[in-house]
């Protein structure tokens, strides 16, 4: 028995098994250590899976050796591997930061339960990425969602509660829409396995139920992914969650929903529904453009640092959807690359925010004046990650914006307008990042600032994340290779 064959299953099983153990641990430090170790193991498994995928073979795993389509199939290809890297990486970085950051926000007696919910969220999100059938994706989606509601509700501010309530309502409606869609497809094809589904839909005589299913699934997942205008739950949930939870969720929660959307639309619907490409493009492209312009504009006028970054996330999802809505190889590559690059840029930004919040409890922009003098390393990290968010050459953000602009320009006249939207969005990003920099560096604080630099541990984690932005900006081979491979797999299904 070669343990390498079981990696896809272990990715989910290890955090799931560690969860009850963490619940039983009484010491919050021990719970933290166990959780971090588990997450680190998951990260290593994800790296191993990525290396396997890069070397040219996809992983296929049959639970209990029952062959698909009767048994449950796990599948890891380039797209899943990329998403797994983001999920487990974000979780591991955020957990290392949690050592210093979480004590302020969650009482030590509640921490073991908090970490247990964290592991469930990790297991659920990884499960979505490895699952090969539609219903398991639903179950894992609900596991991760329920756990992340608990994580967000852990925030010390009482406004976290209405925020998480809204998140729960929207998340459940989204998941139920998805379930209706899966039910309709099951009715027509009698299968839940995605690969089997893609084959059997061709034999369906009446396409209408499948069309309705495509609508339900797309809208349901768009709700989960906070695609404009279904984003309304996101800003407050990110703002009032504990800082490390924001790092984790901002880097991967919405991306995983986007992953399912891509997988379903390109794997199951695009090859089999006539005219689906145009419906998909005409539906999503206007929303993507609106997301970029409106969410960036809102971010420019936002006063709270975390909510500003949350609005910026909605705009970034717009960029990702814009690339997807081109429904061609270049656009998809750019989108998948942007999923990766935005995850590391936004993750680094929120890590810097977690450092900042150790001494600046109130994250209103006017209240962080003088922070750059008191915490030079934190703010320097913030600025570099901010440059990556804008897309300045030399950072990771530039690579995906460049791919995206190249992709839209191949469309001719319309492409120039789309490129203009991307440039305007990036200029607005310059404005909102600059506003933060201005307050942190140039505003004179009302009261003398007593803050000191953040502890070395959390600062190191933040800087590793920031340096990853620079590394993948100068040497983007790995994410580009993964996204190209993922995009060619997805596009390969379209006849």
């Amino acid at each position, binding site marked *: 028995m070669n343990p390498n064959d079981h990696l896809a299953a272990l990715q989910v099983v290890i955090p799931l098994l560690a969860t009850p153990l963490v619940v039983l641990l009484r010491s919050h430090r021990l719970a933290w250590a166990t959780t971090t170790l588990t997450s680190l193991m998951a990260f290593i498994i994800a790296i191993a899976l990525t290396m396997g995928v890069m070397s040219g073979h996809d992983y296929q795993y049959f639970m209990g050796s029952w062959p698909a389509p009767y048994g449950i199939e796990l599948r890891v290809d380039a797209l899943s591997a990329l998403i797994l890297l983001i999920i487990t990486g974000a979780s591991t970085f955020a957990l290392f930061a949690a050592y210093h950051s979480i004590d302020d926000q969650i009482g030590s007696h509640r921490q073991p339960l908090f970490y247990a919910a964290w592991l469930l969220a990790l297991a659920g999100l990884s499960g979505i990425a490895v699952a090969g059938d539609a*219903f398991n994706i*639903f*179950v894992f989606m*609900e596991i991760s969602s*329920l756990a992340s*509601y*608990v994580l967000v*509700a852990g925030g010390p501010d*009482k*406004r976290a*509660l*209405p925020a*998480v*309530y809204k998140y*729960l*309502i929207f998340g*459940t*409606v989204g*998941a*139920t829409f998805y*379930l*209706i869609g899966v*039910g309709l497809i*099951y*009715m027509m094809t009698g299968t*839940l396995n995605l690969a089997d589904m893609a084959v059997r839909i061709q034999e369906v005589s009446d396409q209408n139920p499948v069309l309705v299913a495509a609508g339900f699934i797309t809208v349901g997942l768009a709700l989960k992914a906070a695609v404009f205008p279904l984003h309304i739950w996101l800003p407050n949930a990110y703002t009032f969650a504990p800082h490390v939870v924001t790092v984790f969720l901002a880097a991967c929660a919405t991306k995983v929903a986007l992953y399912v959307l891509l997988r379903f639309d390109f794997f199951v619907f695009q090859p089999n529904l006539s005219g689906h490409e145009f419906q998909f493009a005409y539906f999503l492209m206007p929303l993507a453009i609106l997301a970029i312009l409106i969410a960036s504009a809102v971010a420019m006028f936002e006063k709270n640092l975390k909510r500003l970054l949350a609005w910026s996330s909605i705009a970034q999802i717009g960029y990702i959807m814009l690339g997807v809505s081109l429904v061609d190889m270049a656009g998809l590559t750019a989108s998948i690359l942007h999923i990766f690059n935005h995850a590391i840029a936004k993750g680094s930004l929120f890590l810097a925010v977690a450092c900042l919040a150790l001494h600046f409890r109130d994250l209103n922009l006017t209240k962080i004046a003088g922070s750059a003098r008191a915490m030079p390393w934190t703010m320097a990290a913030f600025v570099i990650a901010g440059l990556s968010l804008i897309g300045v050459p030399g950072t990771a953000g530039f690579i995906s914006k460049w791919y995206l602009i190249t992709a839209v320009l191949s469309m001719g006249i319309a492409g120039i307008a789309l490129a203009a939207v991307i440039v305007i969005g990036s200029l607005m990003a310059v404005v909102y990042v600059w506003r933060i920099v201005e307050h942190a560096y140039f505003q004179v604080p009302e009261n003398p600032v007593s803050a000191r630099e953040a502890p070395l541990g959390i600062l190191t984690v933040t800087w590793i994340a920031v340096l990853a932005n620079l590394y993948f900006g100068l040497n983007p081979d790995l994410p580009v290779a993964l996204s190209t491979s993922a995009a060619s797999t997805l596009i390969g299904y379209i006849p």
Partner: protein
Amino acid sequence: MELLGYYNYWVFAIVLMIGFYAVIVSNNLIKKLLGLAIFQSAVFLMYITMDKVEGGTAPIIQAGVTDQIYSNPLPQVLILTAIVVGVSTTALGLAIVVRIKEAYGTIEEDEILAQDRPS
């Protein structure tokens, strides 16, 4: 006549919309959650409907019986899982409402918004 033949699906669609309407319109957080529970129940009904085969019984193989028609057991299993998910969502939602009541002293959405606004 064919329209009436889809009786169960009509009920599904109507119950679904009743639930969704309650989620959107209610101001009271508990009523919203009830709406959500109705919304989810409608989907359970859809799954149960599609597995029914006319004249079919529970899928248990009996010795000597070869011509029996069985209902499809898979959607029932699926929906059992979905019911568990629905129950846990409702439970978590209610737990959040309890904490909202403790923190704000009300479970009316507009009053909560009004309390948050000045800050």
